[in-house]
């Protein structure tokens, strides 16, 4: 299957994606472009998938998620939007952010328990839109340490609820709301009700906030 005569290693990621969109005309070039693209980003994507699914999906979960992300990227290559970025480093970040969106879509499907996750469509509009660069105010390292302590202090159940719900409820992003079936699925996993899941989420966040406030007050008092 590999076409050894082709060397696409000097092509930009964007050009590789363009070659992939031409698979109807030349499958071997498209496949080779995909392979080159895969080689450049697989370690990063696998690392991300591995970290995000740890303790949530089974052992083969990260590899399956990473593989499916690249297959979906092949199918959706035409949806990549460079957002005006041209320099190689900036383009690498943008491509990986785009791959992150694809992985996120698949991961959300898996969490929703969709058995047909392989076949679900990725929201084309969402993939095409230039990513929003939302960032919070800079936090001091002491504050970050406290925040970390507070998160560590949460029960495993609350950490789990926050981890899963943050996949749907990302601050600053549009169209977010925890889908009912996700709340139901989570409720089943944690032997509780969907209403309790929403409450657990709020309570977990409040607990983190209170932990930080109590430490900060104690220091300033």
């Amino acid at each position: 299957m590999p076409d050894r005569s082709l060397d696409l290693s000097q092509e930009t990621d964007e050009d590789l994606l363009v070659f992939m969109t031409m698979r109807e005309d030349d499958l071997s070039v498209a496949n080779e472009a995909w392979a080159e693209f895969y080689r450049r980003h697989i370690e990063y994507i696998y690392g991300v998938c591995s970290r995000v699914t740890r303790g949530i999906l089974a052992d083969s979960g990260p590899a399956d998620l990473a593989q499916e992300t690249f297959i979906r990227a092949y199918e959706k290559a035409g949806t990549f939007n460079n957002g005006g970025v041209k320099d190689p480093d900036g383009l690498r970040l943008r491509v990986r952010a785009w791959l992150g969106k694809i992985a996120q879509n698949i991961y959300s499907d898996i969490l929703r328990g969709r058995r047909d996750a392989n076949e679900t469509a990725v929201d084309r509009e969402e993939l095409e839109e230039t990513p929003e660069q939302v960032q919070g105010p800079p936090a001091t390292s002491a504050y970050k340490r406290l925040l970390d302590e507070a998160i560590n202090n949460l029960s495993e159940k609350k950490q789990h609820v926050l981890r899963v719900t943050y996949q749907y409820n990302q601050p600053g992003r549009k169209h977010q709301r925890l889908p009912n079936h996700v709340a139901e699925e989570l409720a089943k996993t944690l032997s509780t009700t969907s209403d309790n899941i929403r409450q657990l989420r709020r309570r977990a966040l409040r607990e983190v906030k209170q932990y930080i406030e109590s430490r900060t007050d104690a220091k300033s008092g």
Partner: protein
Amino acid sequence: MGKKTHKNEEPSEEFEEFELQVYEAFLARGWIIPQIDADVSRAEAEMAAGEREELPCELRDPYAALRRSSESRAKVISLQPAEDYETPEQLARAARKGKDIPAEIEDRMRQDREAAEREATDDR
């Protein structure tokens, strides 16, 4: 009945800002998939500084990954019901009712079985 307290209200703007900070802490832990450039950059730095995640064997060869994926998709397609009586399920149903299986169907079953056996031998 008295009014409910504000305990269950949706988060205020201040709370949303706090949520963003928690979100970023989760990102730093790798618990959220980075989807914007700045988060990708941070994740790359954290991954470079931390223990290197070894790529599992099945992901090392891109062509093998592509092949595996197309095989699994082909399987999904082959499980879709066909239009006529030739699906295994319907063949089995015909057999269960004790009816005679028409010669052409028997022939088709034999061919399918032989093809499957050949495939299994080739895989070995």
